[in-house]
């Protein structure tokens, strides 16, 4: 790219004997870099992912961890709040619901802290530490005998939730390999996103909304029982218009 066959001043000259062509290193007047954009750094001094506790503080009256029902709704449907990037730079977004346990959290923390240049980049958590108890009956137990004991704690994640965020004086190409490595090891499908991608997505959504020529939307057809959809539709189709199930 720095090489430019040009008619400007040529000082360096390299001749390739095999092809009998003269490649010339010319000058490229690279424009000065744009001034760094205003980055909002986290307030705390150490810009690294903090250690995540394996178990939360017991909340029960008796000082013990309370068991909980499965509550699959915690992972079902779209995330409603944590869908934007706080620092408007880069992050990982869940494509579907799932549960992250302490091992996943530790993997993310170690990978990012090891690979990130902490003098100019930062990373923050966007999920809570594991809080939901998951019970399991021990191996070789007969059925019955009440609910099993608590096996682990997890952090449920809904589709579209930002899991970690990275930023600082860095570019997407720099951050992508780190986040990509983390993304592949998560227990659900996820993607690496930047603020630019999110903006484009939003613009595309608006464009589709504005220019949609199909008068029969999913919502409208379901509402009016078109094609006998009331027969097979579930309540969740009414909630999320067929985007999540």
């Amino acid at each position, binding site marked *: 790219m720095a090489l430019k066959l040009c008619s400007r*001043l040529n000082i360096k000259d390299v001749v390739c*004997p095999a092809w009998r062509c003269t490649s010339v290193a010319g000058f490229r007047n690279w424009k000065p870099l744009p001034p760094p954009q205003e980055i909002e750094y986290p307030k705390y001094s150490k810009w690294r992912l903090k250690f995540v506790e394996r178990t939360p503080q017991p909340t029960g009256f008796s000082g013990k961890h309370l068991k909980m029902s499965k509550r699959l709704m915690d992972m079902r449907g779209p995330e409603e709040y944590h869908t934007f990037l706080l620092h408007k730079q880069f992050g990982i977004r869940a494509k579907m619901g799932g549960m992250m346990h302490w091992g996943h959290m530790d993997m993310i923390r170690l990978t990012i802290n090891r690979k990130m240049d902490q003098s100019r980049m930062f990373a923050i958590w966007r999920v809570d530490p594991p809080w939901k108890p998951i019970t399991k009956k021990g191996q070789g137990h007969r059925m019955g005998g009440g609910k099993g004991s608590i096996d682990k704690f997890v952090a449920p994640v809904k589709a579209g939730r930002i899991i970690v965020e990275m930023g600082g004086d860095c570019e997407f190409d720099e951050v992508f390999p780190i986040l990509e490595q983390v993304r592949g090891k998560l227990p659900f499908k996820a993607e690496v996103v930047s603020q630019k991608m999110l903006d484009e997505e939003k613009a595309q959504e608006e464009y589709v909304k504005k220019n949609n020529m199909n008068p029969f939307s999913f919502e409208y057809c379901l509402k009016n029982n078109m094609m006998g959809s009331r027969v097979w539709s579930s309540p969740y189709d009414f909630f999320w218009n067929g985007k999540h199930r």
Partner: protein
Amino acid sequence: MAKMSALGKVKLFTPLLIQCRHKSKHFIQRPRPSHLDRRIFEAVTVPLLPEKIHDPYANCPRLRRRLQAVKEDVVQDEMENAYENYLMGICRRMLEENRMIIAFQLMAMSTREKVDIKRQLFLNGLKLKFVSNAIFSDTKWINLSPLLCSHNAYVVSPDVDISRVIKLTHKMPELILLGGLVNDQLFTREGLQRYAKLPDIDVLRGQLVAVLNATPSRTKSLLEHHQQTLSRNLDQYVKDNTEKS
């Protein structure tokens, strides 16, 4: 039963028994594939967007890049490049200080060979330079421009000694003589070669003096010729007569 009615829409063959398995719980990360009715419903309700008109300027990345490059070059020309100006200064000084500039065409050679040539020339008080013709516009060296096509090399020296240059470059088949500028006078290839064969200037001056002296001496001899022959004849006559008597 609802499912059964959905499946039994095609009336070509009605089996006696239909099995339909209902899972107890929804698996969030791998929802069941949609049945035919739902797939048709989803396909019908997909948003329809107007077809984008093909815009070559917007769609062709090559064209876009070229336009960008042209735009950047315009900007670059407008911007003053201090480094380029500095190098231009060096080149101009080189041209002003040296009274002998001889252009050569470079044949294919490796950098090592080129370095050897450079060194040999340097040991003889000559320098090998590479200058592009871009800087010669609106200067007194504009008349050199036929020699300044492509990437030629120039052997320069403050002292005028063409025979040495010709003798040295005679052994270098990589350098092909094109012409030159000696004492602000343009020379062709033949002219330079003839110039090189000429002897030293003092010898030439001696020859000139000799030539200039030749004419008066010849005039003198021509004027004296008749008198001399007459006197010689008379002498002979006198001698003959005295011998007889």
